[in-house]
């Protein structure tokens, strides 16, 4: 599946929810399911400081594809990270850099990416793209 197809899939999943609480229930479940980053990987260089909750991101390149793992102190942030990882994992650095991540806006979660929200997510999306860019030879 391409990045765009994965985004469309998520948009269609979220269109089934009737209200905000259902959406968040789903996001919280995603957050609970996402494996934690091991504590020894929660280092300063992987830390993206938000005003309210901290986020850690580990990026690796395996066989020409990006592989991300991430963690957050806040479970809702972690759930949204789960969605980002689902869209971007196992994609080439080039497609990650070139694709626009519009699904967050389309499912109504854009507030989490605003700089004032200060949950570290905006910084994480940026870092995911920068890490991919570093791997474009």
């Amino acid at each position: 599946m391409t990045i765009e197809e994965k985004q469309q899939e998520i948009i269609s999943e979220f269109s089934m929810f009737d209200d905000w609480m259902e959406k968040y229930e789903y996001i919280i479940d995603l957050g609970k399911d996402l494996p934690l980053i091991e504590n020894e990987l929660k280092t300063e260089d992987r830390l993206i400081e938000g005003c309210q909750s901290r986020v850690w991101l580990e990026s690796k390149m395996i066989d020409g594809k990006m592989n991300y793992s991430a963690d957050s102190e806040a479970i809702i942030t972690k759930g949204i990270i789960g969605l980002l990882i689902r869209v971007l994992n196992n994609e080439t650095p080039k497609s990650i850099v070139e694709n626009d991540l519009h699904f967050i806006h389309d499912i109504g979660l854009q507030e989490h990416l605003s700089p004032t929200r200060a949950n570290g997510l905006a910084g994480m999306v940026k870092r995911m793209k920068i890490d991919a860019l570093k791997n474009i030879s």
Partner: protein
Amino acid sequence: MSESNKKPFSVREIREEFPALRQQIYGKNLIYFDNGATSQKPQMVLDAINKFYSKENANIHRGVHFMSQKATTEYEESRKRIQKYINARKSEEIIFTKGTTDGINLVAYSYGELLQAGDEIIISAMEHHSNIVPWQMLCIRKGLGLRIAPINKKGELLMEEFEKMLSKKTKLVAITHISNTLGTVNPIKEVIEKAHAVGAKVLIDGAQSIQHTRVDVKDLNCDFYVFSSHKVFGPTGIGVLYGKEDILDRMPPYQGGGDMISRVTFERTTYNELPFKFEAGTPHIAGGICLGKAFEFLESIDMSAAEKHERDLAKYAEDILDTFEGLHIIGEAKNKTSVVSFTVDGLHPFDIGTLLDKQGIAVRTGHHCTQPLMDFYKIPGTVRASFAFYNTRQEIDTFVAALEKSISMLK
């Protein structure tokens, strides 16, 4: 006007004055419990903003024409109204600023110019960043010492420890009247007396006070008192620094520009008198006038009844929250205003705040610009519900139900 001459306190009637409270968000009736961050505005303030820009907009203190004269009169009337409300001796002691932060920075810069290396400033462990950072900057600039008066776990100032810190070196004590994070009401009258006994001046951060309780600067005998308009039902972008005239007179100007001068030549400039010496440039004219309207509104409220109502709300909320397993109230001072800060074991405040928001409830989450205080409690932040006199017990019931739902979703 004495409290007994006012209309009986009625939450229902007061709520009708606040259009922002009559709206729905995410399909739910808004419950606004973020009054510590900013208050909503009564209709008379909104009308005044509209009226000023529709009919009276002009620059002040310099025009010969009708509108300028009218705007100047209203701006200065507002200053006098505020002077009377907080019982300052003269309107010259009321300096318009951008807000609490600006007022503290003004004092830190200007009063700071009168201080010398080796002098000391004392603040408390519960201060907002706005009442920490300007002093740190001053201390670096002038080689002063900054001392921190400690608190206990309940969030109360340790008076004896504070007294031990006072000495001939102490030149200023800067302390909050009411903690924005904990709701603690500090014994500022006692603090002021003790500080004055060693010859130190005292600045009171009143950002969280005037909306909850009557403040009388003459009775307090504080040297400086600062607050923001937007937390006392007025517009953003304006605030007040009260300072004793003799001290303000000795302080050098903070910013240079128009309005603050008496005569300018390239060789030498003389400064205007108080309060204009500290008000360079065109001020927030509409803000100043409409802050006066906010005080006119406050004058119509029986504040002692309002304060009682707010404290009842906080007590009511705390009594219910105390029964929640794993929930901890942060800030249990004996003398406390209507702020309820809490944490829930295993849950991040951000998650709780996000789910409350989606249920129509506005609270604040995070460190509330008091990171050293969060370090003291060893927590990343709290969820803070802060009530104003327009809030109700029914709203707290809805909030409690929404909180229960949020916690069960997150666990």
